[in-house]
């Protein structure tokens, strides 16, 4: 009985106290700002370029966030996917794809001081000289079950 009691204290009570200590210690941790979810986009200037993205209406951006690492899906006719990161003090989202043929990059500033949050920046397509200027507004989270991407 004594042996079991000692085992119980060593392997249950002490780890449990450890959990409480870790929860306390971790409460001071900072995680990157939450920007995951759906964003409604407005294309404020589109270049006259054949390679430019053809958006479905209304234009939108879906962001899957894991810390600073982001996976983005545009609702253009090809459902372009980009991978990116939050940089510069988590205020700028920089993303791109790995395709040599149709290189696409996105750089937007995130403004979380307003509600709903806004983004503003440029979307560049490799073959086009001028970028598309975009403005986005974060949409409220829906209860519809989501897919992995």
């Amino acid at each position, binding site marked *: 009985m004594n042996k079991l009691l000692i085992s119980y204290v060593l392997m249950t009570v002490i780890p449990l106290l450890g959990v409480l200590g*870790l929860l306390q210690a971790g409460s001071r941790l900072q995680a990157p700002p939450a920007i995951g979810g759906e964003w409604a986009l407005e294309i404020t200037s589109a270049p006259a370029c054949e390679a430019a993205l053809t958006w479905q209406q209304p234009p939108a951006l879906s962001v899957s*966030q894991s810390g600073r690492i982001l996976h983005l899906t545009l609702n253009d006719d090809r459902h372009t996917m980009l991978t990116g990161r939050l940089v510069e003090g988590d205020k700028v989202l920089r993303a791109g794809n790995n395709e040599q043929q149709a290189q696409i990059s996105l750089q937007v500033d995130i403004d979380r001081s307003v509600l709903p949050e806004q983004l503003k920046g440029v979307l560049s397509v490799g073959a086009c000289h001028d970028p598309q200027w975009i403005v986005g507004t974060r949409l409220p989270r829906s209860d519809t079950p989501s897919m992995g991407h």
Partner: protein
Amino acid sequence: MPHLPTLLLQIGVILVVARLVGLLFRKIHQPQVMGEMVAGILLGPSLLGWVAPGAFAALFPSESLGFLSSLSQIGLLLFMFLVGLELDPKILKGRGQMAVVISNASITIPFFLGTLLAIYLYPRLSDDGVAFTHFALFVGIAMSITAFPVLARILAERRLLRSRLGIISIASAAVNDVTGWVILAAVVFLVRASDSALSLWVTLLGVVIYIGIMLFPVRRLLRRLEGMYERQGGLSQDVLAILLLFVLASSWVTEWLGIHALFGAFLAGAVLPKHPKFVHALTEKLNDTAVVLLLPLFFAFTGLRTSIALVSGAEMWFYTLLIITVAIAGKFGGASLAARASGLPWREAGAIGILMNTRGLMELVLLNIGLDIGVLSPALFTMLVLMALVTTFMTAPVLEWIYFSRVKPQEYAPLAPEAGVDMGVYEMIEGQKAE
């Protein structure tokens, strides 16, 4: 309204792939459920969506997901009811202390390591929309869960239920299961309470009253159903309908209280009378629909939410490996150490450790809840799904290696021959086809 042809096609494809992959996995001595879990991943964006995006989009249009999700949730409710039904307190008689030490240590040690891991992962894989406490508690519970049904079936398949290893494992897993679901309910309750209209104390009071009602007056009423079963000599459709209504009502109450419908279904099963024949009859009626038809839908739905593409690059794979390592060290290591400290020889202690390390379907249930309530990011969800697959897959070969290849069946240690072990409902499992 669901587009019926799409839904029927989805169910058909899911069933075919689940059965085929399940069969394949049985051939390599893995449980059917392992194959079905993998089948779900294969049907999701990780494989079908990657190799045939057109077919994937046509088969699983996003607007159809709600219907698939609802059906799979019904399946899960039935399954959790059956899991609760299989829990028989008799198993703890005479071995409660050892089971409590092993099961509690096999929760707190991985929980501690999971919380420690959360300190590292929170700034890297979460965001400020999730409180650290919620994140850490969820990672902790994800490390601590045991797939009680898989464990019970592995032991039944090996005719080990009456051995010391089997009895202690089953008892530990049963205590682990109850403790794990209570902690999960508490975590879900905490997360939801932060944006619930009801105050935390009102909800908590509601939960306590509900559990009290279930454990005492409802349990007494349910014994009458058992009496009806005995008088009628079988499970009539009326009794079955009453029981199904009871499961739905219990699930509805816990969902309304904010601790998730699955907890209500589990509790409904747990408080039912445990007369082996009654349990067997009820299990027989529900098991096939729940396990053969509806659970593969849940696996497919989980697979649709799992995108291995999210785990791209060395950094993300490092996190995945770290999660798997911590999960195995905590559960396998924790349970083995506790079993050894309780006086079992190393070989048996290791076997208990690897059995408790099986996470299987129960982990997927938990992870889906985490994703639904927004505590887990999609990438972390995928990493934890991979951890569930690895820990479930490794059980059979590691158990073979550390126990079955070295101990002959006639050498399996019985618990205490004079104890007259009452295996209650588990005797029925032994008779069923082990899946």
